[in-house]
């Protein structure tokens, strides 16, 4: 296991480095005028624009810039933001937003897992029955209706009928978080419902369940000790990744409710050509992705010891 862990971590590190390098070089292939605002292009002379680019090292050959960037990374220095928050270290820019996305994301994920799995169990137990149809209708509705339409409905209902704030506010966190959390949970609840129902139905039809019932085990005991546990294993694989990825925020929900989280930071920083911030975010998201996959594998092993992550000797 240790050998496997070290190998995976090393692979993850190399993956992150490759992605960051590719993004770094791609950004350097863009024309340098993107570095400036339209106002700066309007008011600065060409000479002044070049002076700025030179001072920022952006006129050096890309490989020279890359070498400098690696040295910077080795010092754990990710640089400062240029456009999102001028001259502020990117770690500070990301740090000020990450906890907001994390809080909303984790709450909505918890709701999604609990409600989705629980209702998935109910659906599986009532397969073809009324509650199963209700769950299916909900899933179809959530998946079929464009997200912005659902969000608009929730916004109107929530703000007009329930007097909830229309946008997130750091001065009224609890009340203003309700609508974004509901929107964030909406689709993932459906996801967990569908998968739980599917795996549960699969498990319920297996021979060992019939045997357990014949041996006199109670339905509740069969359900929780065997069926749910086995059905949860495939879901668990993606859980760590989900936990990490929701930390990155949701572009759509955060934009819609003006949540000052990480959701739109990457697109904003790309649009504003905030190079250091783009690079830092790409690195962060890549790391989250690969670490999430790794933790998912580990969690699966923890839940089902029959699963082996390393090859047995003599196997292929």
């Amino acid at each position: 296991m240790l050998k496997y862990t070290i190998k995976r971590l090393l692979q993850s590190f190399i993956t992150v480095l490759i992605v960051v390098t590719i993004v770094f070089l791609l950004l350097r292939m863009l024309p340098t005028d993107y570095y400036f605002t339209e106002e700066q292009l309007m008011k600065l002379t060409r000479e002044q624009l070049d002076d700025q680019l030179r001072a920022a090292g952006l006129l050096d050959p890309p490989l020279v810039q890359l070498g400098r960037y690696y040295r910077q990374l080795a010092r754990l220095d990710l640089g400062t933001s240029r456009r999102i928050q001028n001259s502020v270290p990117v770690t500070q820019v990301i740090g000020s937003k990450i906890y907001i996305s994390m809080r909303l994301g984790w709450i909505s994920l918890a709701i999604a897992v609990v409600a989705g799995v629980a209702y998935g169990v109910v659906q599986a137990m009532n397969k073809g029955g009324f509650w199963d149809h209700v769950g299916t209708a909900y899933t179809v509705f959530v998946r079929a209706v464009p997200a912005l339409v659902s969000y608009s409905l929730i916004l109107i209902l929530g703000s007009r009928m329930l007097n909830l704030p229309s946008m997130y506010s750091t001065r009224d966190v609890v009340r203003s978080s309700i609508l974004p959390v509901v929107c964030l949970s909406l689709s993932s609840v459906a996801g967990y419902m569908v998968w739980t129902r599917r795996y549960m139905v699969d498990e319920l039809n297996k021979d060992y369940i019939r045997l357990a019932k014949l041996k006199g085990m109670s339905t509740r005991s069969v359900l929780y000790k065997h069926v749910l546990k086995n059905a949860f294993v495939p879901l668990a694989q993606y859980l760590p990744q989900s936990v990490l990825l929701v930390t990155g925020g949701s572009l759509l929900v955060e934009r819609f409710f003006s949540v000052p989280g990480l959701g739109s930071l990457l697109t904003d920083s790309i649009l504003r050509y905030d190079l250091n911030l783009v690079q830092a975010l790409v690195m962060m998201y890549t790391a989250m992705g690969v670490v999430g996959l790794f933790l998912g594998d580990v969690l699966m092993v923890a839940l089902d010891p029959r699963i082996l992550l390393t090859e047995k000797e003599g196997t292929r």
Partner: protein
Amino acid sequence: MKKFSRAMAIILSLLLVVGGLTACGPKETDGGKVAGEITDWVTYQTIASEMETFNFQYSQNAKELDVLNNCFDGLTTNDPYGNLIPCIAERWETPDGGKTWTFYLRKGVPWVDYQGNKKGEVVAEDFLWGLEWVLNFAKNDAINTSMPNQLIKGAKEYYEYTKQLGEEAKNLDLTKFKEMVGIEAPDDYTLKFECIDKYPYFQTVTVYNCLYPISGEFLKEVGVDGYRAITYDKLWYNGPYTITHFVPGNEKVLTKNPLYWDKSAKLFNTVTIKMVESTDNAFQMFQNGELHAITLTEANLQTIYRDPNHKYHKNLVEARPSKYSYQIHMNFDKRLPDGKPDTNWNTAIANAAFRKSLYYGVDWTDYLRRVNAINPLKTTNLCFTSFNLVTTSDGRDYTDLVMDRIGMRPSLEKYVRYDAEKAAQLKQQAMEELTAKGVTFPVEIDYYIAGSNQTALDSATVMKNVLEGCLGTDYIKFNIKTYVSSFAQEVRNPQLQSFSISGWGADFGDPINFLGQIIIDDDNAYYATTTTNANNITDPEFKAVFKEFTRLVLEANAITDDLDKRYEAFADAEAYALENALTIPLYYNIPWQLTHMNAYSAIYCAYGGHAARYVNRETSTELYTTEQYEEFARAYEAGKGGK
């Protein structure tokens, strides 16, 4: 088990359907329904307009300046009629007609921290620190240097000096700056500027942030890197408000500066600016009473306007025009995507009859409807220079002088510049002259819009219909083309557009700030060097027209001892440009809104950024009505006599 799963199903179904029902609570915001005067104003901006810096000297965009102009006072400010009035400077004088200027500062203007605690007092040397910061390349990256470099003696040389020094320039104090630059503080309350030449409008430049103070003590406290990356809670303020809460992409709160020097100024207790995803979201918030004003989208405006029973129907009010004057700027050296000259267009646009046919031959009313769906002709703009920029000694607006010369006045009855008969003659003349020169008809007009912008596409489609409808598809063919993200990078730099529409807002109070942008042989002429490419004109006849226009502008600019004569001369030059269709004025932006604020009570000026200051604004707890606003407009016009 069955009972258990059924109960659980009921609970979960209810949770899924009405997930938010448990979260009822009292409504926090009161909108316009609170009794009494509005003391805490709540407004909005779209998230794309979030500010990027709190460093005032580094700010160049409206998104920062609109906020920071509320936090800092400079030497002067404006009143609701655009007059320049004292601020930190109690008075000023120029003994030599504009070459040297002395400003006498008021005593006891405090610097405060964001919580309103006194940190120091504004002294004349703070203005030196401010200008040194702007001119020091290592500190401010050349931002906001254009005006001081053009106007103040030694400014450009000091900028070059700091650029040569590189990073070392960050350590400079005021010693070298005082030696090189024409600014001095003989005592704490006197500030002197020495200009490169006579600039009779220099005092109006002082509303621009390049000439604002920074406390020397504050700079010592935070250091150069500290001020570059300054945050709202570390700043020292000297204006009417401090920023007490800021969450990027969410909201910011400006709070009344308790030690503000001008005790007569009427200020809000707080101004909250909420950052919203779109104007549609803002409208939703306005309806919920979470905002005090909303600018209406065309769809919302039409919905309210067409329904006499709509609850907001009687509250529709027209905003006042912004300071921007929108023009059609033609490209006189257009290129094809392969970089070769677009000879057909370049030859056509160099022809006087062709340009004038575009100038006189288009009834823009339908296009103006895109700007103001209800009163399109009210947005008509016939001049390059914005109205309300300067007035003559007898109170006449400069644009009146220009309109006298071109013989036109805006009308609410018809689009006045459109002259079908004249246009037909010009079209025939252009076709004959240009066919002889090998131009093929229809002449293709390439007009670029952002590919993802549906509103721009709708407007461009209307423009196509208007142009082709008025001038004929045998004469022109209007092509709507798209760019991905940057007009400057993808279209303007490779010179692909036939023409573009652009709004210019003045930085200071003089017509040179407009006309100087379209003259030739001047590196500071923004439109000529970046958009119209007028310096590349090869047609000798057309080049002569531009040379004559440039001569008229420079001649007017040389008149510094008599402002009336100066403005008359500028008006001659501008009229010459318009009659030769060197630029085509199009519109002023006048949207519709629902508001609790009387815009006629606010600072209103065609230059600088003080119109954004939340000072002396009259509000009502009830939404203003159309009639009330019309009355405000009448009272405002009547009060102009005092200007």
